[in-house]
């Protein structure tokens, strides 16, 4: 099998901060990649803006490179561990 094209994903975590590389994903095209990026990388309100870039379009320096639709997650408090009542006395959870 050949597999779908690889896209690198960049997320601006909050207003005032730059886009940061968060990982990559596969999608048939850029439009789908953008949607997938929202679902995969911002499930916990981690972003205010996303870029997707075809991995083939990136030219990297070498070898010591410098690393370089929202609001639906706000009500999913059960994703955050503080949502759970840890019974009194239970440690290391």
């Amino acid at each position, binding site marked *: 099998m050949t597999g779908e094209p690889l896209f690198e994903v960049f997320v601006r975590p909050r207003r005032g901060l730059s886009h940061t590389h968060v990982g990559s994903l596969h999608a048939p095209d850029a439009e789908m990649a953008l949607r997938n990026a929202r679902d995969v990388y911002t*499930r916990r309100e981690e972003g205010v803006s996303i870029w997707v870039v075809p991995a083939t379009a990136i030219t990297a320096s070498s070898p010591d490179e410098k690393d370089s639709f929202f609001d639906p997650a706000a009500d999913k408090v059960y994703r955050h561990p503080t949502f759970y009542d840890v019974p009194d006395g239970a440690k*290391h*959870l």
Partner: protein
Amino acid sequence: MYGNDFAGPDAGSDGGLLGQVEAAEAALRAAAHRGRVEGDPAALQDYFDAVIDADQKIEPRDWMPDAYRRGLVRQIAQHAHSEIIGMQPEGSWITRAPSLKRKAILLAKVQDEAGHGLYLYAAAETLGITRAELVDMLLDGRQKYSSIFNYPTLTWADIGAIGWLVDGAAIVNQVPLCRCSYGPYARAMIRICKEESFHQRQGYEILHTLSHGTPEQHAMAQDAVDRWWYPSLAMFGPPDTDSTHSAQSMAWKIKRFSNDDLRQRFVDMCVQQAGVLGLRIPDPDLRWNSERQAHDFTAPDFDELMRVIKGDGPCNAERMAHRRRAHSDGAWVREAAAAYAAKQEEVVAV
């Protein structure tokens, strides 16, 4: 196994799991801010060693020894496969969850595991292998996934036991990986471990509710713990006497604690937590050893572990069949999407 080739210094220490993950993240940043490591990147092996000595991260386009690259690919891929196959035992209870709140939590958890698989495949791909190749190796059996997912989920209480014990053991294994020397893997693990904490807590909450519910519910919870205890202990891998962790892995900072050390930490944590749950750990020989300042316990059946890894577990065939079916049933969709993308490109080109 579930990432037990790597181990770092902080698993099981005080301060909570999230605290340890945050400490690992802070250490990563602090090391990065100490500036570039002295030395000449052209002196390949020497510079690689110097970066690791300085606790900084090896990044994708850096030179690295072949064995380091191969070991990481195998390890990260196996970990990614485990996340993806690991969706199945719990996923089968989404449609049957006994309340809408539990249904939502379970859906979100299983979705997270898919996300974890994707983060990890992405990390593996930075090492020069494609996800398609990795998936092929899973589907044709060349690469493995954690043996734990070859056990069946017989009752709702299994969802609680998996969260508490399986996600719990995974966390003990994985928190040290947040300090592993390969940057993309360390960063993926930091992200994953932060999410895992919710998984363990939701499982613990399920068991706590069942244990303090009706007598039938309590019995269901105890039965689940009875069945998942030893397979969870086996997640830490074979005993140190049989395991071949090399001095090389230690030097590369991709292994610091032995399987038995991590297993011991896990047991010590669980004993206290089981007490609060009001559930019994199914080991008559489990007791505090004041000399060792640790619990003595019965080791899991490692012959069974080997049999399950080799494919002879209760659900190996079912898990692989499910994955293969999803892959082949989706072929027409992937082909269509590729064909559509090609057509759009033609339109643009004209």
